């Protein structure tokens, strides 16, 4: 037996491993084989752009973000653009962080409490369907339409003016559907026995929801929050008409002093600029932004995987 196996040439063994031997059996086997190969090629085509983008952005922007020369590395993130935009992108970096923090302060409580009300206080039926449907619609609204709405409602109608408040409120609107739906899923996965035990001990509905159910669903909630933050961090369109742009960090909450730059907006502004060195800075900003977004996404992924493993 072993002698027979040994007598097989390595080429034949390779054919056997990749299924070519089966493919030669009949026409149906051949078409099966070809179908598999084509699908494999399709997957390669699908993931190829990811690497092409990574190569382009890293190739040009690497020295900006990781280099050690003047104006590179940490200095790139910690100096203001200054005259002729020769400096770093501190305005954009700080602006993005501030926008995200303010948006989270508004968006997270709204969506987590909303999800808690839907799951804990309403029966399945009309109200729940309406709220879920509207949050799905909100998730599908084009970002520029949200930007136009933010401009018409927050900037113009409420007289907030462009700036950090209007910008972060618009971003908060974008965060709501993602967090709401993930929190709902997480709350649904909490076993009913936990709630029953808490209620049987005489706890009110509120303290059951607050300190038992939400506590148990916490990892799921965090996953949703991180996904939403990652999504919102890279949005340009809603900020164009609501946050303005600025070369320094905002100094006040209203008025022209509150205009704020963000990393995506800076990429757009720099890439549309004909000056050569700004292209490099745009790549550096894009690389930094991509690393932030992918890091947030990766953490969300890890947490959610841990959670599913614990539940299953």
């Amino acid at each position, binding site marked *: 037996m072993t002698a027979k196996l040994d007598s097989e040439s390595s080429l034949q063994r390779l054919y056997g491993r990749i299924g070519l031997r089966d493919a030669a059996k009949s026409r149906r086997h051949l078409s099966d084989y070809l*179908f598999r190969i084509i699908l494999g090629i399709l997957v390669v085509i699908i993931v190829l752009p990811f690497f092409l983008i990574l190569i382009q952005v890293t190739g040009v922007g690497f020295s900006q973000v990781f280099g050690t020369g003047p104006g590179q590395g940490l200095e790139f993130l910690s100096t203001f653009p200054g005259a002729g935009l020769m400096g770093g992108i501190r305005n954009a970096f700080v602006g993005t962080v501030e926008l995200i923090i303010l948006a989270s302060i508004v968006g997270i409580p709204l969506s987590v409490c909303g999800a808690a009300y839907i799951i804990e*206080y309403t029966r399945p039926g009309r109200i729940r369907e309406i709220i879920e*449907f*509207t949050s799905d619609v909100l998730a*599908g609204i084009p970002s520029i339409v949200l930007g136009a709405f933010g401009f018409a409602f927050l900037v113009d109608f409420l007289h907030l003016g462009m700036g950090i408040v209007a910008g972060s409120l618009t971003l908060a609107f974008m965060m709501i559907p993602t967090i709401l739906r993930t929190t709902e899923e997480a709350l649904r996965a909490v076993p009913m026995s936990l709630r029953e035990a808490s209620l049987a001990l005489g706890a009110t509905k509120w303290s059951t929801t607050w300190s038992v159910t939400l506590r148990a669903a916490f990892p799921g909630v965090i996953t949703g929050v991180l996904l939403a933050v990652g999504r919102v961090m890279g949005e340009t369109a809603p900020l164009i008409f609501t946050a303005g742009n600025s070369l320094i960090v905002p100094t006040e909450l209203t008025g022209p002093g509150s205009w704020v730059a963000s990393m995506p907006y800076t990429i757009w502004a720099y890439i549309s600029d004909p000056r050569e060195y700004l292209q490099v800075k745009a790549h550096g900003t894009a690389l930094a932004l991509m690393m932030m977004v992918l890091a947030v996404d990766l953490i969300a992924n890890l947490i959610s995987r841990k959670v599913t493993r614990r539940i299953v």
Partner: protein
Amino acid sequence: MVEQNESANIKDDEANRALMTSVRGAFFKSISDFRNADRPGKIDRIGRIGLLVPAVASTLIIVLILAFLWYESVPIFVSPIGGPGIIVSPTWDPNRDLYGIAIFIVGSLMCTGIAVGLAVPLGIGGALFLSEFCPIRLRQPIKMIIEMMAAIPSIVYGLWAYLVLVPFVKNNIAPLAQSTSNGLSLLAGGLILAIMLLPTVVTISADALQTVPMSFREASLALGATQSETSRKVVLSAALPGVGAAVVLSLGRAVGETMAVLMVTGNSLQIPYSLFDPTYVMTSIITNQLGYAFVFPLWRSALFAVAFILLIMSVCFTLTAKLFIRWGMKTRGYI
């Protein structure tokens, strides 16, 4: 007749009064309940109301968005200069008070058509591979890469498309078709949109394919079908509603995509006659001109009309995706 009416009125009155007293009674009762409750009980009652407000927040925002976009776009629809005819009128020239938005709708639809035409077959093929044929060791990394692709900001896609894809179209694809182009074209827009849609299509379709019960596959294989026949004719058709939802959702994303398309389509006010002509899409015109237009009532209103149409389109797509899923629930029961 009159008597009957009167008696009906009296009855109505009585019913109303009864209702009022019961409502009032419930209200007062809840107040007195609240007074009598201890501290945890009070917190419970306040908390219930406090949670109701965030729950209706998303609904409220949607209503506000609809109301404001409608309120802002009414002037152009009622003015004699514009009117509802702007939807089919092809000339956009705010200096001459011509606000036809047909070219943007056509541009958006063409870009979306190219993108969806490319992304749907590719994406469904990829999803089939991931859920049916992929070696278990490769599945997790591929899924992770595709999720990362979904997370890349659209401005980064735009940057790459502007610097790599546009020259590629100009130097490599346009000469192939024996045509000249500066690269900023309908085709570049469609290509980058297709790349951006792929993660959505793949992830949602793969999820739908994986909900198909294993017994379907086993039955088909036991009847002698090959694996590819099983995946095409049994698994794919069983998961059709979910795949349909994926396609519709990706349509919605394609129409609403802003930054990447803005940077590569050339933004020229003409209806494209070939793949290599520049075009102008609905999202781009809002992004480019709202900043200048907001002091001119009609111009601004026309831009908000574009946004309103975009909003209606995206609501329709979401609704259709929901219908697909409901169809799946009804006929399959496992999606």
